[in-house]
């Protein structure tokens, strides 16, 4: 299970990386925005994407759309972990094909639940 963590703040990437390691996911890579993440996704064999929304360069929602538009990546499970909490935005993300949505600040428990739920659905 290879996971890409995309957030412009290194501390947030580190927090997510640590939480994922606690959940048993040790194979992670990091990118600081959509522009750097997309080529990584296209060339590496990632199984899961955790992305922030608000980032300089390419935002998380645009990255999500780019992933869904890419023939080889379109089924990649995507979890959005973001401070963006407007209802319109959550609906926008759902319509763009997000698999889970976690609002910051979040707890380890919430992250765990959402990831497990996504894998249940993907595997089931």
């Amino acid at each position, binding site marked *: 299970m290879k996971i890409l963590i995309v957030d412009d*703040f*290194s*501390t947030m990437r*580190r*927090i997510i990386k*640590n939480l994922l390691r606690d959940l048993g996911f040790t194979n992670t890579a990091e990118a600081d925005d959509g522009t750097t993440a997309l080529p990584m996704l296209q060339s590496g064999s990632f199984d899961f994407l955790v992305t922030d*929304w*608000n*980032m300089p360069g390419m*935002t*998380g*929602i*645009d990255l999500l759309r780019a992933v869904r538009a890419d023939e080889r990546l379109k089924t990649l499970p995507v979890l959005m972990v*973001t*401070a*963006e*909490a*407007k*209802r*319109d*935005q*959550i*609906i*926008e993300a*759902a319509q763009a094909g997000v698999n889970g*949505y*976690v*609002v*910051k600040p*979040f707890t380890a428990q*919430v992250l765990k639940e959402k990831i497990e739920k996504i894998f249940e659905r993907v595997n089931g």
Partner: protein
Amino acid sequence: MEHKDSPQGDLESTLKQSARQLVDSLEKGNFGEAVQLIHELNKARDRGLYHEVGKLTRELHNAIVNFQLDPRVPHATEVSQITDATERLNYVVTMTENAANKTMDLVEQSAPLLNELNDEAQSLSADWGRFMRREMSADGFRELAKRVESFLARSERDSAKLSGNMNDILLAQDFQDLTGQVIKRVTQLVTEVESNLLKLVIMASQVDQIAGIEHNHELLRAEQEQQKMPSSGEGPQIHADKRDDVASNQDDVDDLLSSLGF
């Protein structure tokens, strides 16, 4: 603001007076006088306009002085308050980032120590059980006694290390005091800048009034709304619990998503 002496007051009274005279002149068929009156009206309007533009320029100058910006020296060694505020906020970003990294370093150092202590305690506990049930040979017990001895020494060493790490984590939170002070000062500056800008807007609106310029505020607002790109994100929402258009917590998000069939 003294209304009587204001240029608008002047302009208004001049307008009213001249308008009556203008009607009189026109009714009497005195067109020469009428044209003269129109000319005077124009002059009065221009005077008011110059006066207001003058005031606006002076206010603008004051505002520039207040912001400590010097337009003549773009690379002045003395930084403006705005530049200073930007630097202060950058300092907050650096401080909080350092504190977060320091805390995470210490947690990452501590977690394996705790895990190893726990693993060893579990394994010793299992062997101790075997000894108590007399399932252990004398050699086995000698081995166990050695392990207990080294575990005790290790517990002592590691708990001292952990306690030190906890203390350092506590100390890493000292940024809060410093960043709090910085943010309060910047907030104060923003409030000052806002009130100065508001004064300028009021001045400018008086110029508009005299010059007869009208702005369609609704149209302007609509244009601004359009320029806002929702996809680019807004960052954390303040007062999320008081707003209907914002999810205030994860449960809200989950409810919304499940209502969409998630």
